[in-house]
Every structure is written in structure tokens, then in C-alpha cells.
């Protein structure tokens, strides 16, 4: 049920899958958050013809993986590590999105509580 009911509890605060966070990035943090950095350059991705939906923060690993595939073309098992690296990065990206969702939900619940108290 975790997948199907995943965003069900967030309906109370009008939050659904693939919504954009509405609070300031620093709201609710006691420390300064580290900014995500894009390693691959746009020109490299264009040159490698990586489709736009894959030009995310993990695209430098995708580039490595594709370069490896190109170099070892019939022997694709040699690129297992590159592929693993890339998929791990995508997994961490997804976990970050889940964290952002939960943060957004909690902040909205808190805002509701404060408005209700006032």
C-alpha cells in the first residue's frame, strides 16, 4: 500500500505527486543547506545527444555509462559498474524528492496549525 497510498495522507494539505515545493528552501532548517551542483555541462549533453528528460543532476554518470557502452560495444557487461553508479545516483535523487515531499507536507501541516491557533 505504500506506493498506492503514498500521497493519500497529503490530500489534507492539498499536496499531490509531482507538485513543486512552495516554501523557501531554507525554511525550517537550523543550518545552511548545501546546494546541488550540476557536474555535466549542457554542451556535453547536447553533443552526446542525451534526451532532455535525462539531463538531471545525475547526467554526468549517464554520460560515463554511455561512453563506456560506446567503447566496449558488444561487451556491455563491462559497463556494469558505470550503470550501477548511475542507477544509485538516480535512486538518491528520488529519495531527495521524497524527502522534499515530506518536508513540504510537514511545513504545510505546521502552517495550518499556526493559522488555526491564531
Amino acid at each position, binding site marked *: 500500500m505504500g*506506493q*498506492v*497510498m*503514498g*500521497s*493519500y495522507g*497529503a490530500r489534507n494539505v492539498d499536496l*499531490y*505527486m*509531482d*507538485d*513543486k*515545493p512552495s516554501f523557501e*528552501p*531554507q525554511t525550517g532548517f537550523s*543550518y*545552511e*543547506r*548545501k*546546494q*546541488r551542483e*550540476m557536474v555535466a555541462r549542457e554542451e556535453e549533453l547536447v553533443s552526446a545527444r542525451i534526451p532532455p528528460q535525462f*539531463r*538531471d*543532476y545525475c547526467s554526468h554518470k549517464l554520460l560515463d555509462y554511455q561512453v563506456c557502452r560506446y567503447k566496449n560495444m558488444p561487451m556491455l557487461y563491462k559497463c556494469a559498474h558505470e550503470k550501477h553508479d548511475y542507477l544509485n545516483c538516480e535512486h538518491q*535523487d*528520488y529519495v*531527495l*524528492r*521524497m*524527502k*522534499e*515531499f*515530506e518536508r*513540504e507536507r510537514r511545513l504545510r501541516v505546521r502552517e495550518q496549525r499556526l493559522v488555526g491557533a491564531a
Partner: protein
Amino acid sequence: MASTLLKKAILTNPQYLRKTVGVLCNGVRNHWNYQYKPGAYPKTPEERAAAAKKYGMTIEEYQPYPEEMGYGDYPKLPDIGADSRDPHYPYDNPEFKRNFNEPIHASAEIFGEDRYDPAMRPRFSVGRQWTWFLGVVGGSMALYFYLEDYKMGRPVTAKQYPGDGPHYLFASK
């Protein structure tokens, strides 16, 4: 060249010439367009009688289509599907259940055994058909509109792309 061929045909193979002339005469004289076309709409009783005789019917059973339908003097035959005809009668054309010189219905193509019979008894009544149709379609739509308010998804925010402005990790600098 042509005259040699013609001479050769006439002298050496008269059968060939006869066949050619026969085909040409048939094509010119029995042109389907006016042969198959019905006559003008009969207005006087004499014209009606002539039309009935033309289609091999008695005056009592001959009944033309209304003039504005454009069928001319073609007879309006009863709408009887081939399925409703007697299967044991020795027809001249058993495959069509039709006798020689029997007038053909103006919409004969739909009353064949493979198509439609107006006297057909449907397996399910019309009311039952509508009930099932509206039940399935209406039920699906009701379910759709009811579930509009219960959209579910995975608990993630939109995917972060570098072009959408700064994004932050859950870690300190």
C-alpha cells in the same frame, strides 16, 4: 498491317472474327445503364398496368415507390429477409432463395441470408440491451467522477532539473 491481320482473321480463322463481333455487339447493345434503369413513374392506370406487366406482377400486388424517392416505376416489394423465406421450397437459385424472373427488392443487398432479416427475433430485448449499455457506461462514468477526488500517487515532488533554479541537499555546507 491492320488489313493483313483482318484478312488473315477472316480467311484463316473466321471463328475469331465472329467472337470479336459478338463481344462488341453485346457491349454496345446491352449497355447496363439503360437496360437496368427503371422506367418513368407510372401516373395513369394504363402505365401502372404496363409497369406491373414489365416486372411480372399482377396489378393488385404492384406498388411503386413514392415518386420523390427516385426509383421510377420500380416495384415496392415487401421487406422479407432471406432467412424468413421457406428453406424447403425448390428455388431456381437456392443460394439466393430466388426464382427465375422474380423481381428483386430495391434494397436486396441488405436482405441476404448473411445480412439482415426485419422479422428477426433478437436474442435480448431492446430494454435489456439499453439497461446493460447504460449500466456499464454509466457505471464506469460514475466511478470515474467519484474517484476524481481520490487521486493517489507516489509521495515525491517534481523531478529536479538544473534549469529550474537552485536545489538543495539535506546536508549542511
